[in-house]
């Protein structure tokens, strides 16, 4: 049986045209997905069953005992941190926020180690955004800044941006100009009409120089900016001003480098400046397929998109203080629940050392280094393949993910709900 129009639960492109071949309840083939998506559909090693740590060893147990242990850990903690939520659906996030509220914890998503600074930049500056459909149908200039979709979002260029064909862009790549700014000549850079190689940590300066040229103050900038000849910057500014519809697509090159959210703020300001001359939009190349969805749910439930402290009776948001890495770095979190993420791999080593000193609950389909540190491990169905739910594409479009095969495992949402029920019962008992 072929299931059509399946959504890919991997990257923020959230491709919705995947064909999945199912035989005897198993996936045997995938069409149209890129290497990243196919690898997810075809499956990886799974966590074999629920486990709790006894005498230092993870030992198999029942789901009920795992839920009980998780609830006890969260209930006993003074500063629990509930982290992850991006490789799962919005329904899970909703329950997770309720749970964080119930235990007076902090809820944070993988955005804070990814495009968190973009969100802060957007809060500072505002966003001239658009859907990917507009980019596909209208953009005649695409600027990838610190973004490498060729490796991180492999179908982005064909489906939505530089190489796509749309209503007013019938010539596809031939009718568009592509600029890439990066610290190395990436695969994406090889597809560019103009590539600007910058030194790591100089994005802010380079953006500022472009803003000056765009605003007619080019004579004030020196012959080179961060090592880039002024003539190159003038050429890029010229391409931007000549565009009918430009799109700046920003990646982790901005958010992970010196300047972080200020880089994004400046990029958004450049786009705002350009809108004084022509039409320009800017989008963040969000990583996980539903990292944008967690931000939406969290924002409408608490008023903030990530790093929300629910210990005070009213939501409090101060990344740098309430983000997962900060809470761990200060050794403030005294228990951690990880849902659909792997902070043990993705956080700096010293932060992971802090994680190893506190009880950790893991809810995930797949084993990973977070499993090595966990005291309770609860395996779940893979969202978008074995469970349905809602996810948000990187541009904020919400789409319904399908269930393609049955795993018999509980969904992330069910697991969080079960733990929430037990936490509430523990509260009643006291």
């Amino acid at each position: 049986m072929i299931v059509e129009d399946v959504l890919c639960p991997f990257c923020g492109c959230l491709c919705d045209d995947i064909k999945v071949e199912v035989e005897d309840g198993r996936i045997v083939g995938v069409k149209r997905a890129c290497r990243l998506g196919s690898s997810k559909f075809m499956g990886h090693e799974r966590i074999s069953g629920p486990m709790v740590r006894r005498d230092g060893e993870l030992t198999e147990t029942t789901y009920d005992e795992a839920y009980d242990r998780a609830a006890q850990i969260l209930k006993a903690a003074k500063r629990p941190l509930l982290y992850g939520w991006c490789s799962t659906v919005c329904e899970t996030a909703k329950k997770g926020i309720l749970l964080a509220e119930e235990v007076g914890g902090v809820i944070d998503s993988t955005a804070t180690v990814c495009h968190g600074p973009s969100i802060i930049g957007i809060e500072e500056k505002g966003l001239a955004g658009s859907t990917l459909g507009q980019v596909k149908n209208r953009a005649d200039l695409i600027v990838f800044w610190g973004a490498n979709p060729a490796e991180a979002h492999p179908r982005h260029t064909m489906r939505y941006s530089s190489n796509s064909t749309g209503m007013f862009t019938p010539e596809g790549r031939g009718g568009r100009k592509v600029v890439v700014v990066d610290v190395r000549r990436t695969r994406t850079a090889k597809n560019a009409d103009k590539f600007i190689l910058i030194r790591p940590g100089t994005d802010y300066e380079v953006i500022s120089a472009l803003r000056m040229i765009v605003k007619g103050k080019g004579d004030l900038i020196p012959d080179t900016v961060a090592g880039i000849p002024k003539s190159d910057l003038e050429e890029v500014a010229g391409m931007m001003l000549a565009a009918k519809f430009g799109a700046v697509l920003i990646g982790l090159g901005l958010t992970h480098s010196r300047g972080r959210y200020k880089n994004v703020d400046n990029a958004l300001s450049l786009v705002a400046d350009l809108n004084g001359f022509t039409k320009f939009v800017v989008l963040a190349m969000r990583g996980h397929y539903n990292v944008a969805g967690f931000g939406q749910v969290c924002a409408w439930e608490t008023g903030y998109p990530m790093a929300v402290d629910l210990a005070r009776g009213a939501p409090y948001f101060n990344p740098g203080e309430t983000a997962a890495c900060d809470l761990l770095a200060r050794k403030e979190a005294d228990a951690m629940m990880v849902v659909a993420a792997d902070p043990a791999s993705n956080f700096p080593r010293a932060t992971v050392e802090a994680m190893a000193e506190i009880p950790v609950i893991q809810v995930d389909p797949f084993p990973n280094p977070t499993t090595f540190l966990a005291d309770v491990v609860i395996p779940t169905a893979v969202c978008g393949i074995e469970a349905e739910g809602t996810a948000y594409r990187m541009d904020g479009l919400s789409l319904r993910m399908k269930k393609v095969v049955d795993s018999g495992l509980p969904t992330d949402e069910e697991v969080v709900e079960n733990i929430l029920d037990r936490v509430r019962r523990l509260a009643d008992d006291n």
Partner: protein
Amino acid sequence: MVIILKAIMISGRTLGQGASLEAKTSPEFFKATSICALSESDYDDLGISGEANVLVRTEFGEVVVSARKDDGLPPGVIFIPMGPWANAVVGMDTGGCGTPLFKGTEAEVEGTKMRVKDIQELFADLLRRGGDRS
């Protein structure tokens, strides 16, 4: 004499890293992420060749990874794919915005005969501290 190269370390996504992202204990993930890419000239300057390993050291830690040439990298910039090997040398300061500096850490690189730790070994010294405290 050991040749030490000073460089800026950045981490980032790659296709191989992404394809094995949810299979972290697989040999594919190990192969894709326990590496350090260097520009051709930096690689040659280190006096290493073939399947050489390098020791990458920053003020936050050190890690052994296997060296690769990458013609897309400018001299003085090294690239380790996103993952636990890269994060072994990333600092935890978030600059007040929640996000560590995953790109732009000053590093020293030298050729080494030491072996690359596999993923279990990388976490071995952390395993028991959380333990049964729950």
